[in-house]
């Protein structure tokens, strides 16, 4: 492996090649279930395991000390942090993230991260300890029905009944997590199975008759697509996170350029198409660009690529894109025609469909359409006040200038997340990591930790920035010390508005300024002290003229995390905004124009 590689190259490299060779020496050997498990992880080339020990998995940790497997174990300080770290690892590298926890509370602490990975199609495998098989069902100490609890938030889950089954099940779990529409898989490991002796076997073939990856892309569909594209006068590409999961960002960009079609992305699609490109409309939806939503409402053809028409994208579905025929390219069939009917669907891998379609279509002449879009851009640009107060958008613009877009940015949930999506102008895939579907506060910091480990494990040289609100930061702040202990040089930003800002925004707009339980002034800690107590560097800015200096200083610290607290205006709002349940052409564009801008 070269010392630095690109994220795209890493994501496209099959993960297991190295792993499979590493375990040849153990095949046919007798050993404990716990040791079999460690080698099964090696076989999958799980380079980093985020874990926390406990009684049910104590034998695994014991064998880890004895066998010294070839992966790095990172002791997280809360299992939820572990699952988000695995998500960050997976999203930054395109490889499967791995979590190991004990039974009962260890397992239940992972639930939020599993649900998050399920909603956002993140490939992670979570190994949970379980009480010994004979005790299952007896309300034993630290027993939880982990399969039952995680059933509806996993792509699949397993209970392992024999040590001999471990390598097959681990292999299937990684295969399921990674292929098709990626997602979380849980493997429940009873303590007696880990203690029992078994034989290590490894079969690279997958035998699962109920599972296959769809590939519905044929001549007829391709020609229908060509006709629809040829006929259209106002075409639009709507790009989602599936494009990045399919490693298709480059192919998509080329496709859009070749066709001369404008591109708007969902929150998870950010980075799939360079936002500094003239054809980029940025994000659409609830807090998307006004012109992007206008384009949607006027388009006569929308090509949805690896996207699922989430309600934060469509608003009121009945009134979304009323003139557009829909071509939907999507690996998960259950997403096709779920919210918006697809006139033509390719239930197949995004990259493969775009590659087949590309040579069949001719460039579009859509000057008038592009001019319309330009007019919308001029009519309602993205702005914020420049009045000497410290505003989050200003901080983000400065961060963008410093990183030049060549950083992995993990954002939390709330206003900070939406401003980051609006102002950071993403240009590369796998550089924007956020909790979109579940909207999990406390996601950013542990995800950034995981991304940092992932980049390190694969030799990708990029800065990792974690953007947080003051509310969400406190939900997994314990992981700061983990980043510090491992010298992961995260740039941690806290946009401190002393409020649960996004809820405050809704209270101001829709609940007559009753700021019920959203003021954090009395419960926020001194973030600088908190950071220093966690062995991190810490800086603070309270005025716009301090921002540059803080950022400059922060970028010079490369041996540990640095926390930057920005004391921003608490009343700042995220605009434009489609109120929940309203149509995409009813956007509120400023506090002073609450009558909708149609």
């Amino acid at each position, binding site marked *: 492996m070269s010392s630095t590689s690109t994220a795209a190259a890493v994501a496209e490299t099959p993960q297991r090649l190295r792993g499979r060779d590493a375990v040849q020496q153990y095949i046919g050997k007798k050993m404990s279930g716990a040791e079999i498990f460690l080698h099964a992880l090696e076989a999958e080339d799980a380079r980093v395991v985020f874990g926390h020990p406990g009684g049910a998995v104590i034998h695994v940790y014991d064998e880890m000390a004895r066998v010294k497997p070839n992966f790095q174990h990172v002791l997280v300080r809360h299992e939820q942090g572990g699952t988000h770290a695995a998500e960050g690892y997976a999203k930054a590298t395109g490889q499967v993230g791995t979590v190991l926890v004990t039974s009962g509370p260890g397992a239940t602490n992972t639930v939020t991260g599993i649900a998050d990975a399920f909603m956002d199609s993140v490939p992670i495998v979570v190994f949970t300890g379980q009480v010994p098989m004979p005790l299952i069902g007896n309300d034993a100490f630290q027993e939880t029905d982990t*399969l039952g609890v995680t059933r*509806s938030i996993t792509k*699949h889950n397993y*209970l392992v009944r024999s040590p001999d089954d471990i390598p097959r099940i681990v292999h299937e779990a990684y295969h399921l997590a990674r292929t098709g529409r990626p997602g979380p898989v849980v493997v429940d490991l009873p303590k007696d199975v880990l203690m029992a002796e078994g034989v290590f076997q490894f079969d690279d073939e997958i035998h*699962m008759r109920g599972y296959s990856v769809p590939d519905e892309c044929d001549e007829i569909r391709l020609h229908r697509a060509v006709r629809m594209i040829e006929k259209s006068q106002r075409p639009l590409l709507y790009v989602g996170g599936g494009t990045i999961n399919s490693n298709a960002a480059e192919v998509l960009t080329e496709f859009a350029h070749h066709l001369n079609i404008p591109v708007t992305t969902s929150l998870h699609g950010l980075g799939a198409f360079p936002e500094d490109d003239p054809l980029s409309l940025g994000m659409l939806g609830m807090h998307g660009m006004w012109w992007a939503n206008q384009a949607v409402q006027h388009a006569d053809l929308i090509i949805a690529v690896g996207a699922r028409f989430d309600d934060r994208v469509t608003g009121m579905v009945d009134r979304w894109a009323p003139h557009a025929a829909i071509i939907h390219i999507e690996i998960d*069939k*259950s997403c096709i*025609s779920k919210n918006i*009917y697809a006139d033509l669907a390719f239930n197949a891998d995004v990259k493969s469909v775009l590659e087949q379609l590309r040579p069949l279509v001719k460039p579009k002449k859509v000057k008038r359409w592009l001019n319309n879009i330009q007019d919308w851009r001029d009519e309602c640009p993205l702005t914020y006040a420049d009045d000497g107060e410290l505003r989050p958008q200003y901080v983000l613009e400065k961060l963008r200038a410093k990183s030049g877009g060549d950083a992995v940015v993990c954002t939390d949930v709330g206003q900070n997340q939406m401003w980051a999506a609006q102002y950071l102008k993403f240009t590369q895939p796998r550089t924007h990591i956020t909790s979109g579907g579940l909207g999990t506060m406390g996601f950013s910091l542990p995800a950034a930790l995981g991304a940092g480990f992932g980049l390190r494990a694969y030799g990708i040289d990029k800065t990792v920035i974690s953007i947080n609100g003051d509310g969400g930061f406190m939900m997994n702040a314990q992981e700061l010390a983990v980043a510090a202990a491992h010298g992961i040089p995260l740039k941690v930003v806290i946009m401190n508005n002393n409020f649960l800002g996004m809820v405050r925004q809704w209270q101001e707009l829709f609940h007559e300024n009753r700021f019920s339980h959203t003021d954090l002034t009395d419960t926020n800690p001194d973030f600088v002290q908190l950071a220093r107590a966690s062995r991190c560097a810490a800086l603070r800015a309270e005025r716009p003229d301090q921002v540059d200096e803080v950022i400059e200083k922060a970028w010079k610290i490369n041996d540990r995390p640095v926390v930057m607290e920005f004391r921003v205006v608490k009343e700042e709002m995220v605009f434009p905004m489609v109120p929940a349940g309203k149509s995409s052409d009813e956007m509120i564009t400023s506090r002073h124009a609450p009558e909708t801008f149609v």
Partner: protein
Amino acid sequence: MNEEAITLTPQQLIRKRAAGEPVEPGGPPQSQQHIINVLVENSMGALIRVVNMFSARGFNLDSVTVGVTEDSTISRMCIVTRGNDRVISQIIRQLNRLVDTIAVYDVTGTDFVERELCMIKVRCTGAKRSEVLQINEIFRGRVVDVTPDILALEIVGPTRKVDAFVNLMRTHGIEEVARSGRVAMQRALQPAGSEI
């Protein structure tokens, strides 16, 4: 109300029709009953996942039967559910999405045979008893247990027939009803049916 219907764009009309939704606001909901056969891995987990999916996603589940097939590693579930076209296609896709699901067949609208078994205890003596036995005869039911004042009957047939029988028995005083739920199979000479 009708005004809104008129303002629908052609594309919106296409979407509504495809979903099986009423084109005019307030029009009749176009919900239909469907019988869906699902072949799954013969394990408890597979069964629970299927049923769990229905509750997690808020789909209707009118009845479920399950039993092993000619291959002892595969179970067949017969699911009776309701919904408009969009909902039914979602159900089928969500079923297929489960890793333990081997195949899904919507037998509705194909040529199929369906049966349900029902056992019913009726309290009856004297003249009433012979009347119950007569009805039982007409429905080709069987007597499975007799006590001085209770007859236990078994009847097999399409669900409509079972419904009719149970309704007739109501007037005679039903003590207890146990119904198996439907099973359905496509007729011979058809291959497995159209797999979805």
